[in-house]
């Protein structure tokens, strides 16, 4: 599937741009249960590994807490208090503290998976597969709707979405379709696509510059002098990706908190 460049044929001698194929590595294990085919790829393996690492670090951080924290305890505590105070309390308020465990789990899971995009030998973020951001978005979507229904009751919750308080009646014709569409469809969709697209594009960007550098070096003519430029860009873009990866984890978490706050608010 060559979408970003003309597809490379086996006999081509030019530069083969990386394509969507990069996101479909050869499966490690393939099996079939009840007619459904399962593939266990290295991306899935990375996702499991990073989840285990996050779990191990957090358990180690809280297992024997000391008054003067050890390094790992300090790391775990700062990560948690960043989400609890900086996101849950700041966005939702005091009653948001009960969502802090979920928000912290979400933040650390996304951050860990995103960072795999620049970890040597891993070099791909599992969040660049749409399934993971999509499922996280579905969880957040179900959660904020559930919280809103619990808080206000089914009828009032959806009545407030349909007919937003404080808007003159004739404006409902214009505003109601937008509010319904944005709350129930645009929110989960943009949550998933923002994270997925950033990770997907970032991976391809890094591949273009690194494969470009390798190609320029091996092409065997004067173009080799441009290889360091491409390689330098790959390094710059790696730091840029670090920023994007951290930012996207933060944005996903803070948006989930914003939606929860909206569902809890008296008038939303």
């Amino acid at each position, binding site marked *: 599937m060559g979408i970003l460049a003309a597809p490379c044929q086996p006999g081509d001698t030019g530069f083969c741009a990386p394509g969507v194929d990069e996101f479909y590595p050869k499966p490690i294990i393939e099996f079939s249960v009840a007619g459904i085919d399962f593939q266990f790829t290295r991306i899935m393996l990375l996702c499991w590994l990073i989840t285990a690492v996050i779990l191990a670090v957090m358990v180690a951080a809280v297992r024997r807490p000391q008054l003067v924290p050890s390094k790992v305890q300090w790391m775990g505590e700062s990560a948690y208090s960043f989400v609890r105070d900086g996101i849950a309390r700041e966005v939702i308020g005091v009653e948001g503290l009960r969502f802090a465990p979920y928000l912290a789990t979400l933040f650390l899971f996304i951050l860990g998976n995103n960072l795999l995009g620049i970890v040597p030998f891993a070099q791909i973020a599992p969040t660049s597969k749409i399934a993971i951001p999509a499922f996280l978005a579905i969880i957040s979507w179900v959660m904020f709707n559930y919280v809103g229904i619990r808080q206000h009751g089914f009828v009032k919750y959806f009545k407030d979405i349909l007919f937003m308080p404080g808007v003159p009646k004739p404006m409902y014709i214009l505003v109601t379709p937008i509010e319904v569409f944005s709350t129930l469809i645009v929110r989960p969709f*943009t949550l998933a696509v923002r994270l997925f697209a950033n990770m997907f594009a970032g991976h391809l960007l890094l591949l273009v510059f690194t494969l470009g550098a390798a190609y320029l070096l091996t092409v065997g003519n004067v173009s080799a002098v441009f290889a360091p430029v491409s390689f330098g860009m790959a390094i710059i873009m790696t730091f840029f990706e670090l920023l994007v990866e951290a930012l996207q984890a933060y944005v996903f978490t803070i948006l989930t908190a*914003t939606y929860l706050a909206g569902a809890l608010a008296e008038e939303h």
Partner: protein
Amino acid sequence: MTEGRQPGGSPGAGAGWAVLGTLIAGMAVWGGIGWLLDRWLSTRAFLPIGVIVGVASAIYLIVAKYGK
């Protein structure tokens, strides 16, 4: 940790992204209705009108919702 400002950006970031979502929804809903009208009546004017109406309503909605 001191009260008030927390490290790592402001909660305004969340509201900002939510506003963007509402704007997109406004354009998509009313632009979409305009596009359907255009297909139905074979005209060309309703899509741009719909997009403008959608953005205007979305801005109105945002002010009513977040502008308190």
